[in-house]
């Protein structure tokens, strides 16, 4: 069968696209490879999505979005797309379970946490190095934790981690934070949070679990090794230095810029009938509120595209 619209990814962008498409009575399928929600699912507090104040965690917000999408009849499946063929009028997506066909496609694959890219990081992921505070904070109760980064996510997660850790040190490559002022104030007033300015992590070390790391001062060039407290035996490093777009699948197929998909303001890519929405496209602000907006626009434009290009 040929769907009107297939959406790849069930984060806020994909779910919003699904909502708008199914409300427009498009025969819509949302394909997700892990679980609904995407990155926001691991966020403890979502305070900047308009209307979400009470009980506004990532999971509750997503739960409500999924419920809404289901109510309007969009179909959802769990599958991973391995290959796409956008050359014909009917777009073909090959998954691990099935092959899907659609008149139009919305790519809402989002982004994944960006690694530091230093030696030892990969080996020690899940062994002291983490990209998800809500997942792993509990391990570090009364231990020391370092947070790498200086944006909203880094500082917010550092504050969250103070509920568990004995001490949280923010390692930032500049001498001031980039996070919103209101978040910065909270961090500066938190007694458990310390700062290591002008610094980057250059190596993570440990036999099985994280035991030490090398930190370099970018101004003086001086490097020093920080060891775990002897009684603790380990410590945590939480990395929040941005994201990489999840667009590998579309390399050489869709026009991109630094790995992000290029679209016009109506979410059209360079391929007719293929739209992109959310964190995976070139844009200036990557938030839930812009992701859902992208999704809505993409779905409306997809409907228009289908009406203009397909009869019946």
């Amino acid at each position, binding site marked *: 069968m040929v769907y009107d619209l297939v959406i790849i990814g069930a984060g806020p962008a994909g779910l919003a696209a699904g909502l708008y498409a199914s409300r427009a009575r498009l025969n819509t399928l949302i394909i997700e490879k892990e679980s609904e929600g995407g990155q926001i699912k691991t966020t403890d507090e979502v305070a900047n999505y308009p209307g979400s104040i009470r009980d506004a965690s990532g999971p509750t917000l997503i739960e409500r979005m999924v419920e809404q999408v289901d109510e309007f009849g969009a179909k959802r499946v769990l599958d991973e797309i391995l290959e796409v063929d956008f050359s014909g009028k009917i777009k073909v997506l090959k998954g691990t379970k099935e092959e899907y066909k659609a008149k139009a496609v919305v790519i809402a694959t989002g982004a994944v946490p960006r690694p530091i890219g230093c030696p030892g990081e990969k080996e020690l992921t899940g062994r*002291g190095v983490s990209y998800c505070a809500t997942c792993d904070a509990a391990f570090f109760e009364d231990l020391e934790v370092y947070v790498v980064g200086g944006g909203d996510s880094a500082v917010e997660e550092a504050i969250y981690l103070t509920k568990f850790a004995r001490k949280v040190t923010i390692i930032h490559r500049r001498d001031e934070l980039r996070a919103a002022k209101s978040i910065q104030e909270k961090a500066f007033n938190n007694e458990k949070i310390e700062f290591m300015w002008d610094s980057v992590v250059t190596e993570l070390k440990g036999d099985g679990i994280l035991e030490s790391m090398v930190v370099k001062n970018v101004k003086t060039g001086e490097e020093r090794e920080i060891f775990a407290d002897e009684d603790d035996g380990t410590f945590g490093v939480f990395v929040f230095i941005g994201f990489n777009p999840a667009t590998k699948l579309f390399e050489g197929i869709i026009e991109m810029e630094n790995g992000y998909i290029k679209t016009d303001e109506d979410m059209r890519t360079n391929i007719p009938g293929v739209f992109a929405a959310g964190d995976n496209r070139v844009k200036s602000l990557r938030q839930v509120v812009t992701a859902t907006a992208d999704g809505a626009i993409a779905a409306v434009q997809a409907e228009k595209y289908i009406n203009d290009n397909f009869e019946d």
Partner: protein
Amino acid sequence: MIELNKENFEEEVLKAEGYVLVDFWGPTCEPCKALMPHVEAYAEKYGDKIKFTSLDITKARRLAISQKVLGLPVIAIYKDGERIDAVVADEATPASVEELIKKYY
């Protein structure tokens, strides 16, 4: 699936013969909770040759760390009490977990 804790971990995993799968999870770990129903389904499918167990790390943090688990989710395979393989954090998807299981089934 057998629920593990500080008391029975040694008996059920470290002293067990054959293959044991341990699903390390925590109540605030959303990826873990999303993965859990899939692991439960695999327990139905592959439970005849592999023993399926789960450990809530918030109830046994030191035990988890002693098993070199410091980040979730971790789906680990033990053979005769030795941890021999695992999928960790982002790598742990329903598909990768099934692949891991099939290697030892």
